[in-house]
């Protein structure tokens, strides 16, 4: 039952996000446009490039979708509305999202195309930049909750959300989440206008439809993770818990979209430099500050 409800919520959120993305791009609010263009993808020819690595080419879009859904499986919408309330939930989401890299390397290597391959390997460099900024802020979140269980993490924010308790961690995690979801300004693996679509370049038809769906699902999963770790999850007045979770998740996802629309694409070397010279020391500082707060403040 939980599985069905969470999957419907995930799909619904993806659809709303796609509608909002279309709205901000074209200026027109069309509720059915994304569904129609999704259907149109299914009707188009899905071309297989010459001498591809067929296994990677076919697996990559599906793997990306699976890991995005697996990541969402440990994130609660309400106290009991979670697919798998694992004892290692906060670690599990890292494990699932680590395979985004594997999927993108497959999508890059598989089609036997130069742009795609550069896009795929670029994401490996991007991971070296953002990975620590995902893991270290989550460590500080788990320190406050004294647990890796995601529902316990939400309960630990009753009264004071982590965005107030550890704002530095929130900022770092938000930026790193955008880099993980390879949204602008961190869309280096796809880089429209520069890499001709990068990892997307050789995909068409139904395969591209799965890839696009997977990307949007990934954004929703990361927005949901931000909600659970920093924005108090289901906590909120008047409305039912699941409604708060969905509203916050969508708000985070839309803010990721908007941040991307107004910022220029960052260079790979600059991303690496800023993440390692500034980001990681700040993440360590965040862990120390949270550690002191946990020990000193009752």
């Amino acid at each position: 039952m939980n599985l069905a409800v969470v999957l419907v919520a995930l799909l619904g959120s993806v659809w709303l996000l796609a509608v909002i993305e279309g709205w901000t791009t074209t200026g027109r609010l069309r509720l059915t446009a994304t569904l129609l263009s999704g259907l149109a993808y299914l009707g188009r020819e899905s071309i297989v490039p010459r001498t591809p690595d067929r296994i990677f080419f076919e697996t990559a879009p599906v793997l990306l979708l699976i890991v995005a859904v697996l990541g969402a499986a440990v994130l609660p919408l309400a106290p009991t509305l979670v697919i798998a309330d694992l004892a290692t939930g906060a670690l599990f989401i890292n494990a699932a999202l680590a395979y985004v890299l594997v999927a993108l390397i497959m999508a890059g290597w598989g089609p036997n195309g130069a742009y795609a391959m550069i896009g795929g390997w670029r994401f490996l460099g991007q991971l070296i930049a953002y990975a620590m900024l995902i893991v270290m802020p989550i460590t500080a979140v788990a320190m406050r909750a004294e647990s890796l269980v995601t529902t316990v993490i939400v309960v630990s924010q009753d009264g004071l959300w982590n965005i107030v308790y550890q704002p530095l961690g929130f900022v770092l995690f938000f930026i790193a989440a955008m880099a993980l979801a390879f949204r602008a300004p961190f869309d280096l693996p796809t880089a429209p206008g520069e890499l001709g679509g990068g990892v997307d370049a050789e995909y068409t038809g139904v395969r591209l439809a799965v890839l696009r769906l997977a990307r949007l699902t990934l954004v929703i999963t990361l927005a949901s993770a931000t909600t659970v770790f920093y924005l108090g999850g289901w906590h909120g007045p008047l409305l039912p818990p699941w409604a708060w979770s969905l509203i916050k998740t969508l708000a985070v996802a839309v803010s990721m979209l908007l941040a991307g629309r107004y910022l220029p694409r960052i260079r790979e070397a600059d991303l690496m430099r800023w993440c390692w010279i500034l980001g990681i020391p700040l993440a360590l500082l965040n862990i120390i500050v949270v550690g002191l707060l946990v020990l000193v403040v009752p």
Partner: protein
Amino acid sequence: MYAQAFFVAVFGLAAIGFGVVVFRTSSMVRSALALLFSQTAVGCMFLAMQTEFLGVLQIMMMATEMSIMAIFMVMFMMDPGGMGGMDMTHQKRFSIGAGVVAAGVAIVVAFWADWGPVTAEAPDAAMQTRALGMELLGRSMLIFETAGITILTAMIAATAVAIPVQTTANSADKEDTE
């Protein structure tokens, strides 16, 4: 119990299967990712044996490590795509012999060793995580810290070696590229 043994066996066979693929393919990326999925299957074996933390950790760590290995293999091998028909194996007889002997020893040890009584019920996952944390920060702390410092030293040394020595010639190159 039987279901558990079944899943351990399935993931074990998957790990061996992917392990074989590592050596059967000529593509470096396929080889690296086959090794990744072999290790992921080992992680799934941990999960089937109810050691949640270790399983999830194994599955997480391998994704990044094997991907990084893939790019190094692509950089340094002469035929990374495996489409040039190059034979990249060597010392075949010796390696087959060594492999068979090692497998034989492992099997003998597995059957002869006294593994102690089988645990009737595994402690719940949260307790395991706690116990592991206590172990890492207690008895095993020195070992892990030593390993950590060694790896850090190697990383710093590798970075130091990789930084080019500034000479007049290559500083001029640098200005050109920038």
